[in-house]
């Protein structure tokens, strides 16, 4: 990809670390400094980061629960309507809606709907897909998915001040403090 665009407005300041422990200590400091619009990027989920960053629990499980209930009800209604109402099947005098025989499909659709809710719920909460992001245009940031650990404070944070935040990030002990610019369309 082309070189990092430098002409856009300041999106964020970023610094990077080599080891998970330095990274986590830095995150604790950013959290305690009171920043809100900031993030930590690493090639794998570092254990204990939720606390270090002060991330609250996600509502994803509730979305999945709704998906599961939908799947369960849809499967039950579908089988009842198709086999007992719209096209009644009489097989060896058995009841038209017999839960034991209808349960396998109910179970499968509960799992199916829950899995879709989980998959797309995660996309929705994470704002995915988003192919166009200032960080993705930054060449240095490419190692975030490989072997380096990044702390990024965004310019829209109320506490952000380009000089003071830069000094603060430099004090965390990372390698370099770098500016991340907004992407400007040619």
């Amino acid at each position, binding site marked *: 990809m082309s070189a990092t665009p430098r002409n856009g407005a300041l999106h964020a300041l970023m610094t990077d670390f080599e080891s*998970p422990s330095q990274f986590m200590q830095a995150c604790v400091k950013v959290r305690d400094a009171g920043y809100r619009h900031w993030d930590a990027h*690493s090639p*794998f*989920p570092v*254990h204990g980061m939720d606390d270090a960053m002060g991330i609250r629990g996600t509502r994803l499980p509730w979305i999945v629960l709704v998906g599961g209930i939908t799947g369960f009800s849809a499967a039950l209604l579908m089988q009842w309507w198709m086999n007992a109402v719209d096209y009644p099947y009489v097989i060896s005098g058995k009841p038209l809606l017999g839960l034991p025989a209808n349960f*396998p*499909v109910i179970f499968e659709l509960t799992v199916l709907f*829950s899995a879709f809710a989980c998959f797309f719920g995660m996309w929705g909460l*994470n704002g995915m897909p988003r192919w166009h992001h200032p960080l993705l245009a930054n060449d240095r940031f490419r190692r975030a*998915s490989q072997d380096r650990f990044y702390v990024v404070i965004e310019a829209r944070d109320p506490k952000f001040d380009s000089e003071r935040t830069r000094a603060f990030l430099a004090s965390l002990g990372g390698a370099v403090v770098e500016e991340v610019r907004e992407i400007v369309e040619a």
Partner: protein
Amino acid sequence: MMKPQVEAWDNTKDDPTKPVELILGGNDFTSITEKVSDIVLERKTPRAWYIAITATAGLTGIMFLMIAYLFMRGVGVWGLNNPVGWAWDITNFVFWVGIGHAGTLISAILFLLRQKWRTSINRFAEAMTIFAVICAGIFPGIHVGRVWVVYWLFPLPNNQAMWPNFRSPLLWDVFAVGTYMTVSLLFWYTGMIPDLATLRDRAKGRVKQAVYGALALGWRSSHRHWHRYEKAYLLLAGLATPLVLSVHSVVSFDFATSQIPGWHTAIFPPYFVAGAVFSGFAMVGTILIPARKWFGLEAIITKHHLENMNKIILATGSIVGFAYATEFFIAWYGGNPNESFAFINRAFGPYAWAYWTMVTCNVVTPQLFWSKKIRTNLTVMWIMYIFVNIGMWFERFVIIVSSLSRDFLPSSWAYYRPTPVDIMTFVGSFGLFFTLVLLFIRFLPMIAMAEVKTVMPIADAHSGERRSVGDYHGDIPSHIRDGGSPK
């Protein structure tokens, strides 16, 4: 890859005072990333790969030719007769669905059980699950007879205002296998998103950057994302676990809810699930052993991983053997003459050759894994995997064909023989399976890089303060393990 060094890597010694090293060869985050992603991005495609895919694609072509012939002429081109209306096709279906189960066991159940060694092999096993289920799905689809109304399997509105019968286990199968395929795909893709981002960030060509970039969905390795991602992964694992147990249970209902002697048994669901895991692990091993050698991944997929797999094969193989014995016991103890005849007929009737092949491969061979020498010897274990693959195919064949060929009415008994079309369709399905495997190892990361990184000792932000990272041996506090005082 330097040979003598690889030979020296042995992490199968059970030393309870040290955590097992899951990743060998002094690797760090950088080297893991390079080793795995270079296979896809940097290395020249080996000539052997082209030769292999030509062969497997050829076999796939043969399978589709056979299917075309079947569609033109009808199921009479198979060796089916009256009373054997289900034979190789359904055997192949159950065989392939079963193979898939190892992938889900490794990816979901071992994840819930916090078995960290799964990270080196889960991507591969999950890919295999999907490919095996694709192969499985073909067989019932082409077996329906009137293929032009195959959509009747699904509850679709049609001009006869007719709906499928939801009380039929064959319909349960449609939902179970369909859900299994879909959820396995979602789980596999979810696990791959961070690694696709790695490939996007390392790719040099525009096309590769665009394709991997699109597939990575703009993943930025953010911890706010990781948080939801890990929750999603955990939930999918929790959903996939009961699902995988249900799939082969439902497959076994196809038989167990019928009245054929030898099929109508309550033991089928657990017995089928254990057999499925057993056969699936053997298939994972069959492909993994050559793959780790060809691509120099011995440091990531270590002997310890293979030994653990062999222990699971031993456990599930013993369950399968025990189930065979239980079936015989119940056939005698239940006092039903048709049932006891069905089992005596299996072992000593016209299909005795198939029965004893099955017993040798599935009951006798895995027991050799009690020996540590055998379970850590690559050549021997690979041969054993082949035995298990053969044995598990024969298990399904024995259950299906021996029961059908001699049912209640002796005047209608008949012996089933496969035709060349039967055989070539089955062989061709291996072509399809291996074609998909070859495409996978060429274009996608075959090791879950992000997950492997999490189980390396250097990934622990508290290393030195807390317990070490390893597998169960790592539960020993570091000050006891190292003989020092607590920090």
